[in-house]
């Protein structure tokens, strides 16, 4: 695929992407569902995987598989080289300064749990506060609730306005001397809101809080630069950026990671063990107990290559076009109400149809081969904020097309035929 692509010059691409060609990289997009061509619009839940990602994992498994960091033999060394090589790739991808600042985890959920348990467990005291926003995914709420409960700290949520944007004045007002940690998403999975993460980080840091940004939805849609953002922690889930499930990364500033206690104990995270005392490895290995998901890491590396070869700028351009088109075609229907109308939005369209429950719409669309999400999107506080139990969510990836938006519109015609 790369051969015919114009040469990359660090994302400053001008030729538009060849979407038909990209689609051919994703065999699943050729399958049928209920006899109809699959229209996959549930990319915020998980993205599909291109050939290169799956084949990269297969090649690793068939040729190079061995445990890492343990053997003097050739395979173990190759496996370790893969594993550590991708760490460097992730570092570059998120703009971190040091490779040791990248810790492999299962995904965003584990990354946040790690920070909550390890950093929160050490630094939160009775009466301290953790601030999140009303936009958060449950995985950026519940880990904080757990640690707050055990430390006698308090979880506070900054409100959002009717467009689904964090109210910055309120956000600022809620960060006081007791606020030790501030955590928010880069992009909201429920509404698509892109948060002004640099501004939010600046506000929080100027008041002495440590900042975690949940990047689960962001890495496939926008260039991430953790140093520009200025955050202390940033999370990545490979399966939302064309990679495999069960692997992701936590970026953490080295000084913080160095001072944090281990999250889990076991092999690979120790320097020396005796029953009296154990010396831990240095970061990042201190946080990577046990045999890791090496093939997952290999897949994450291929996913980053895939994204880099297309160029995030061009991907974002295409996705914005889809969002604008869908907002017009779907949002323009009289029965549709869009939920989440932030000025800055990623390619997620959350909406409601008057008098028809999202779950019923999901079933009817499924009959048409259209995969969307109907539900609360693991963000019940967002649903409560808008007074709805659920929404329908169409979320677009680089391989989606305007024709698929049209298919969604025809699916909604069917819904109205039955329910209208």
């Amino acid at each position, binding site marked *: 695929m790369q051969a015919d692509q114009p040469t990359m010059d660090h994302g400053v691409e001008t030729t538009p992407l060849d979407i038909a060609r990209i689609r051919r990289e994703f065999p699943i997009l050729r399958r049928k569902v209920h006899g109809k061509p699959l229209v996959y619009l549930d990319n915020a839940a998980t993205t599909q995987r291109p050939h290169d990602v799956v084949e990269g994992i297969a090649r690793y498994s068939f040729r190079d598989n061995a445990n890492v960091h343990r053997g003097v033999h050739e395979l173990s060394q190759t496996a370790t080289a893969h594993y550590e090589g991708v760490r460097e790739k992730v570092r570059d991808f998120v703009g971190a300064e040091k490779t040791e600042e990248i810790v492999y985890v299962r995904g965003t959920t584990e990354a946040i749990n790690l920070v909550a348990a390890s950093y929160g467990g050490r630094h939160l005291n009775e009466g301290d506060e953790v601030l999140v926003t009303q936009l958060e995914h449950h995985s950026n709420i519940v880990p904080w609730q757990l640690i707050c409960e055990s430390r006698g700290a308090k979880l506070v949520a900054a409100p959002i306005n009717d467009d689904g944007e964090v109210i910055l004045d309120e956000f600022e007002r809620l960060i006081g001397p007791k606020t030790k940690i501030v955590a928010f998403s880069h992009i909201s999975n429920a509404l698509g809101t892109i948060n002004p993460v640099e501004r939010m980080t600046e506000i929080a840091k100027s008041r002495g809080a440590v900042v975690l940004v949940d990047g689960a939805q962001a890495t496939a849609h926008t260039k991430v630069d953790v140093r520009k953002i200025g955050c202390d922690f940033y999370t990545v889930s490979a399966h939302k950026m064309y990679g495999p499930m069960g692997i992701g990364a936590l970026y953490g500033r080295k000084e913080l990671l160095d001072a944090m206690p281990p999250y889990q104990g076991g092999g690979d995270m120790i320097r020396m063990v005796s029953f009296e005392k154990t010396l831990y490895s240095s970061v990042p290995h201190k946080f990577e107990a046990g045999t890791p998901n090496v093939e997952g890491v290999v897949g994450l590396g291929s996913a980053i290559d895939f994204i880099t070869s297309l160029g995030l700028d061009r991907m974002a351009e295409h996705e914005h076009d889809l969002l604008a088109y869908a907002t017009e075609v779907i949002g323009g229907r009289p029965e549709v109400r869009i939920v989440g109308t932030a000025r800055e939005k990623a390619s997620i369209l959350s909406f409601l149809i008057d*008098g*028809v*429950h*999202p*779950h*019923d719409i999901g*079933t*009817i669309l499924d*009959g048409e081969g259209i995969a969307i999400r*109907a*539900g*609360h999107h693991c963000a*019940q506080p967002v*649903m409560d904020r808008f007074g709805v*139990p*659920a929404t329908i969510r169409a979320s677009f990836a680089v391989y989606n097309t305007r024709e698929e938006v049209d298919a969604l519109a025809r699916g909604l015609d*069917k819904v109205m035929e*039955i*329910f209208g």
Partner: protein
Amino acid sequence: MSELRELYQELVLDHGKHPRNFHGMEDADRQSVGYNPLCGDKLTLYLKLEGDTVKDVSFQGAGCAISTASASLLTETLKGRTRAEVDQVIREFIHMLTEGSPDDDVEHLGKLVVFQGVREFPVRVKCATLAWRTLEAALHGQDEPVTTE
């Protein structure tokens, strides 16, 4: 599309849109909350008993067409029945949706037969059974909210 028509029959659409006995009940003897975390459906079921007989039954809440229609038809079906009869209907209804086969004789379930097509949509079975599991909890006095997970 025909399976969809089977799922969304007129009776289901009608009860989904205009649920019967859709209100709270101040003097209820029993009430129970049912919750479907998958779609956020939540309903409260109210029961008034007179001796062994269901005197009145109503519900409130927000749900999809299937769960609303199922709750609505439940309230219509149960008034005046004895507890033993109610238990029997719960069992047979849930059986029809989970283990039953299309050839089963379900005539005696009356209007509830309209939900037979839900069986073809496994993820929707929980919607159709939510009210019934909640009823079970109300009758047998479980305090915890019922969830379909």
